């Protein structure tokens, strides 16, 4: 019987899980920018450290507390991001990572979201350390509520700053989903995801 030969995830996920690439092991690693998202309490946390030269990611090291999908997607993300321009790296999406992994089960998708978030947090940190204006932030904003013009980044900022810890609070502060209401489901999913990512 060959049922046993089928593993939980794709061969690529398995390979990156068994032999994760670019793990941060040097305690004296001198990074140019560093970002951490998630929390141990939620079951996954990721740290990304970058070396940048001429706005190109020349090295990326990471650490992850998380499941197999989280380990594999961070490993894959690290391979993809090295050599990218800051602009390209900032626009790396979870879909791009999971595509390269040959897909993840639906309920595991959120594990891959942390990887690109940590990468973006590290680039934000780099630009801040350099005292440069962060023009990328606006470029990746996505409108969630068309009626009130609320973007995913506004929602993320409110969750990150703990100003909105319930969906009702979020609605009070932004008016999101209070007009036609058709964005409510999408917004609620994003909001729950963000609560998870920021460990609330």
């Amino acid at each position, binding site marked *: 019987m060959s049922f046993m030969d089928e*593993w*939980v995830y794709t061969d690529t996920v398995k390979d990156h*899980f068994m032999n994760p690439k670019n793990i941060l092991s040097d305690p004296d690693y001198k990074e140019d920018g560093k970002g951490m998202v998630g929390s141990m309490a939620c*079951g*996954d946390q990721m740290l990304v450290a970058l070396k940048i030269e001429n706005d190109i990611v020349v090295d990326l090291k990471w650490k*992850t*507390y*998380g499941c*197999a999908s989280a380990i594999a997607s961070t490993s894959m993300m690290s391979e993809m991001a090295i050599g990218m321009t800051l602009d390209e790296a900032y626009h790396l999406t979870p879909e791009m990572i999971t595509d390269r992994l040959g897909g993840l089960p639906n309920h*595991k998708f959120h594990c891959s979201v942390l990887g690109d978030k940590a990468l973006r947090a590290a680039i934000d940190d780099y630009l801040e350390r350099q005292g440069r204006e962060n023009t990328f932030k606006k470029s990746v904003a996505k409108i969630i509520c068309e009626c009130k013009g609320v973007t995913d980044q506004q929602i993320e900022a409110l969750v990150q700053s703990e100003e909105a810890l319930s969906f009702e609070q979020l609605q009070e502060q932004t008016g999101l989903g209070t007009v036609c209401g058709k964005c409510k489901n999408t917004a609620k999913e994003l909001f729950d995801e963000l609560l998870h990512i920021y460990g609330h």
Partner: protein
Amino acid sequence: MNSKIVYLDNNATTPVAPEVKEIILETLDIYGNASSMHGPGRLANAAVSHSRKAVASLIGAEPEEIIFTGGGSESNNTVLNLVFSDIFENTGRDRIITTKIEHPSIYETVQTLETKGVKVTLIGVDGKGNLKMDELEEAMGDDVAIVSIMMANNEIGTILDIGEAARIAHSCGALFHTDAVQAVGKIPVDVKALDIDFLSLSGHKLYAQKGIGALFIKKGIPFCPLIHGGHQEAGRRAGTYNNTGIIALGRAAKLAEDQMEQEIPREQALRDDLKERLLATVPDITINGDQEAILPGTLNVSFPGAEGESILLYLDLEGIAVSTGSACATGSLEASYVLLELGLGPELAHSSIRFSLGAYNTQEDVDYVLEKLPPIIKKIREMSTL
């Protein structure tokens, strides 16, 4: 994939015992409907009766007090649904009391009953998983219909004080049920000594196959079937007798009764060896559950800094099968409610691994785990943000 399998997930399900497999194959052609009067029917009926005696004997019951069901979940659902039956009509009893660490077939069933108007009280446990008896005592009242307390917890292995819980339930006139799916076959169970009214057990947790279980119903205790449509089981559970399943469960029950005395210390010794050597070789780990009153083969360990699903899958790649209380393995974002209820922080719950040893585990299996696991934990912790 590694061809070697070290199966340490016996609380999830057990392999079918060779003796049980043998009798299944021998009796597969007992096709008669055990309710029929003719020869083939009588043969099936004799086999069913034989099994009923074996199951009754394992838990100190009378054969007439046993009905066969489709498994532990059906047995549990049957008892909880009694709350709607004639038994409690005009008695003013419309409340169920159970614990916060029950199996989902109790936990989720009472949640569903709650939406239909049943009142539910959940009793907590201490840090080791022992029932808070004072909480139970305080919660009791004349409006309680059923008290349902598990005999042993599936995740941590803690054995609860069922005798005392039954006494408290009866002192208020409530009926007492125990989900003993994890206990029967592993530890001695005596329904008379414990004064239990209903007890659920499951075949696939004691080396029979899936899809067969039983419910003990104390003689004289009012009852009402969940599944209607036939006179089987003396009108207590409709449906043509599952000959093969019942025969298998009977054989497994006999096997458990015969072997328990030597099996308990054997499993305990393996479990203790695994525990002691893990504590000695893997730094910074915690053992969960009551280490005195515990199922002989269950060992639940938290490995802080290492996430449970990762541990499970690295072990799987080495051919070792375990389970975890981590959220990631279930697809939810919440870690095991049982471990959280014990007061473990989410980090410890996400990092937990349950080893459940069974009749076919050997010292060699334990040695293999101790060879493979410590480097896995080291590897995961090295890449962890801890």
